[in-house]
């Protein structure tokens, strides 16, 4: 079973209200208790793909999808012609485990939920770092990631974006209101930029 990185505990403690190292230390016993539960329930799956993008004025287009009006995305992709698009999930059993622990031991359940959120975020960070390392060998660099629902991109853009990624292949589907199921799932995209351009910016 994999061990979690330090960042997971730090973020989970923050989600639970910790503001200082002392606060984190107070929460460590229950987070350590939550860790094997999260690791045992998590069935990590992801989809990652590169795709062409186009920016025209404030219109952003991802690989043949309907253009979307988003100055935020256009800024992120300025000077970039490619995106890395990604979806990651911890799977349905994670949701079930959180629900189970909230019922039988609510405190531990809250810790399991917070740690699972931090874990999926950290796994995605690791995935993007790997992709960045690969791109750097080709003279490119990845921008920070951006998800539907951030900034001026409406959450409803999840619909075309998840369809584009075929997230159903990893078990991620949307509700009518564009929320993801399983809940511990993230979709994101990042701009592939020439390395030099990153330095200029």
């Amino acid at each position, binding site marked *: 079973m994999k061990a979690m990185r330090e960042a997971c505990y730090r973020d989970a403690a923050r989600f*639970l*209200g*910790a*503001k200082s190292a002392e*606060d984190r*230390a*107070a*929460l460590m*016993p*229950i987070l350590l*208790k939550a860790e094997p539960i999260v690791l045992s329930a998590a*069935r990590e*799956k992801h989809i990652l*793909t*590169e*795709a*062409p993008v186009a920016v025209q004025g404030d219109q952003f287009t991802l*690989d*043949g*999808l*309907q253009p979307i009006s988003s100055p935020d995305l256009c800024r992120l992709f300025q000077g970039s012609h*490619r995106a890395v698009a990604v979806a990651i999930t911890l*799977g*349905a*059993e994670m*949701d*079930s485990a*959180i*629900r*189970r622990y*909230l*019922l*039988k*031991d*609510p*405190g*531990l*359940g*809250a*810790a399991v*939920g917070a740690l699972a959120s931090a874990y999926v975020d950290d796994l995605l960070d690791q995935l993007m770092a790997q992709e960045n390392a690969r791109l750097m060998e080709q003279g490119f660099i990845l921008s920070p990631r951006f998800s539907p*629902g951030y900034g001026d991109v409406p*959450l*409803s853009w999840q619909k*075309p974006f998840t*369809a*584009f990624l075929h997230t*159903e292949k*990893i*078990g991620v*589907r*949307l*509700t*009518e*209101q*564009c*929320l993801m*199921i399983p*809940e511990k799932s993230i979709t994101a995209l990042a701009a592939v930029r020439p390395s030099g351009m990153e330095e200029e910016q």
Partner: protein
Amino acid sequence: MKTRWEQFFGAEIVVFDGGMGTLLQSMGLKGGQRPETWNIAHPERILEVHESYLKAGARVVTANTFGAAESHLGDKAQECMAAGVKIAKEAAQKYGAKAAIDMGSLGRLPEPYGDLPFEEAVRQFREAFVAGINAGGDLILIETMTDLLETRACVIAAKEALDICGKDLPILCSLTFDEYGRLLSGADIPATAAMLEGLGVTGMGLNCGHEPKALLDDITDLLECTCLPVFMQPNASLPIVRDGVTTFPTTPAEFAEDMWNISQMGLHGVGGCCGTTPEHIRLVADAVRGMKPKERPYPVDALTGKTYSPCRISGRSGCLNLDKKPFIIGERLNPTGKKRMKQALLEKDTDYMLREAIAQVDAGADVLDVNVGLPDIDEKAMLKVISTAVQTVCDCPLQLDTGDGAALEAAIRCYAGKPIINSVCGKQAVMDTVFPIAARYGGVIVCLCLDESGIPDTVEGRLDIGRKIITEAAKYGIPKNELIFDALTMTVATDPEAANVTLGTISALTKDLGVKTMLGVSNVSFGLPQRSLLNSAFVAMAVREGLTAAILNPLDNLILTMFKSAVALSGKDNSFADYLSAYGNAPALSLNSNTAPAASIVPGAAAQAADDNADQLYLAIKRGVSGDAAAQVKARLAAGDEPLSIIDNSLMPALSHVGDSYEKGKTFLPQLLQSANAAQAAFEVIRAALPPTAPDPARLIVLATVKGDVHDIGKNIVKVLMQNYGFTVIDLGKDVAPEAVLNAVQEHGAAMVGLSALMTTTVGAMKDTIALIHEKAPGVKVLVGGAVLNPEYAASIQADGYGKDAMEAVRICQSWADAR
């Protein structure tokens, strides 16, 4: 006897076609465009694809209708379905082949995991199938399914569509398992196969995902766990996408060689999925031409003449082979003789029942009995609600326990897996009700050895009823391997021979009729003291006689230990695996309590525990140790303390201390909840000691996560705290319509409503709910909370209060209650 598959397809291995989507993309289908729309816009191109596969040797072509359902195509769905089936039929007829009505996922998950009502999923699938059947489809092919419940909805819809159209076409169902050998919703291959066999599909298969070799383990598992025909349509490898171009590296020759090798294991059908082309299928067809499926040896039921698989039941993801070793059915989700459970059912306190369910599984139950039968309850609605809710937190199979046929059918329709049905008996009217339901939806059936004349006093009398039930079940195509006989336990208090008759019946049912058996163990000791002693001895004796399943209380350590020990001694616990797993590292066994004290999470707890002068209940709650809190209350009640003084002097001050500490940032959410949980354990003991009282309307609150929002963790945390601060909570769950909130307020006379929303897209529903409550139930206060809200926004949508966290929500509601 020829199987349904052989009657329809003939004796040789059937060749299906290959991928459709990748070929349509090469013909100009754009990303984001639904392929099914081409059935109307470009029928000639669809016909061309079908003909290319038929020329290659396919004998089943799959209509271009994978997504021809309302959720994908709206009001065009049926038109696209009919057009797609007609094109496939036109092509197939030229070559003497068959046209399959193809159906995949709706794209939305059914409740309770998603937000699509189960019956809505059935309706959408059914309407699509009716259009396909009326357009002339020869068979139904459900494929690429990844969710157990959606698969169930789809198969049920297919059967209902065939009934509506008066047709009897084969239903094939093909699934896509992940690299862990599971559906994306968690079910493994045996669990899924058990459900599909129960639903009566003609054949089942694997498709998509990977290339043939990568599916070798999965197809081996599937062939081992079902006697039904198995088919396989893999991808030409996992797709590799770069710069928008998708490629599938497995060549036609590699694909055909691997498919030929795998078909030797006993496949009835072969074909391809994503990335396969007419060339892949041509080489596969050449390889298997003239081959018959390898015979797989399965036993044949003497009365039905059908082969049958090992008897399995399944839950959301867990599966149990009943032919392997004796198992435990937890009995506690049943109101009979349980005051607290009755109260929970009447108050619709689902969480109480879920905690009971989790505790039983944690203690060692393999299956959970679910019985909600009470005179004042809508059993049809409640059995469905509770069994569905239990499946969200427990993987194991359930036993649906009801004497009401309508309740059974309502619950079993949307059951994820294959349950035990409890029960049928030798009464003709009962058999006429239960067997058709079991035959339609699948399930292992508990058979009681009694009939219109009552319970026979003798072993032979009970066996005669058993024979009658076996014969009647066979009329519905149900083999005796799917039956489990209850030998019926009567109390020895009134008849000293009762236990011997029961044990003799178990022995005779096992040896003479060759059937599985079960017992509701605890009846044997009714009316006698120290019942656990008698129950545990009785269960050990029953195991010796061949018992398959014991319905018992797994939280009773003595009976649990005796059952596991008896199974180990009977030689049915392979290598003592279960026994060692349960007791191999156990400390000295205590037979009186199964509750290990929970560890404290508060630093320095050990030091505090040493404070003998402190109020120990106060400390237990402060430290969040549930077992200690409950034990302290029991001790104080036994010592003569008044329940209300315990609440006022220890419970509330402890909760107040923890709440203050949380608000000052000295303790955190998990600790707050641990304390709340400990207080709840203490309250449960006090509640049992008090006469039932009507809830105080001023402290009655309706909680809901608003319409469209499925994130309910925050709302659940508020609920736990509210309950522990003396509020009566009516929890409506998640995705709740404004009208449902209003109805609950009016039905219960609630003084307050708490609404939560996590997403910006759902606060509109919150605003609508507040407006409705204020209009129709003036005076009722509405509190809101959730990640996207702040006090200003809460005020702008006319909320009466905003709680930044659970503790503040409690404080606000307390102030409202005190003001009334």
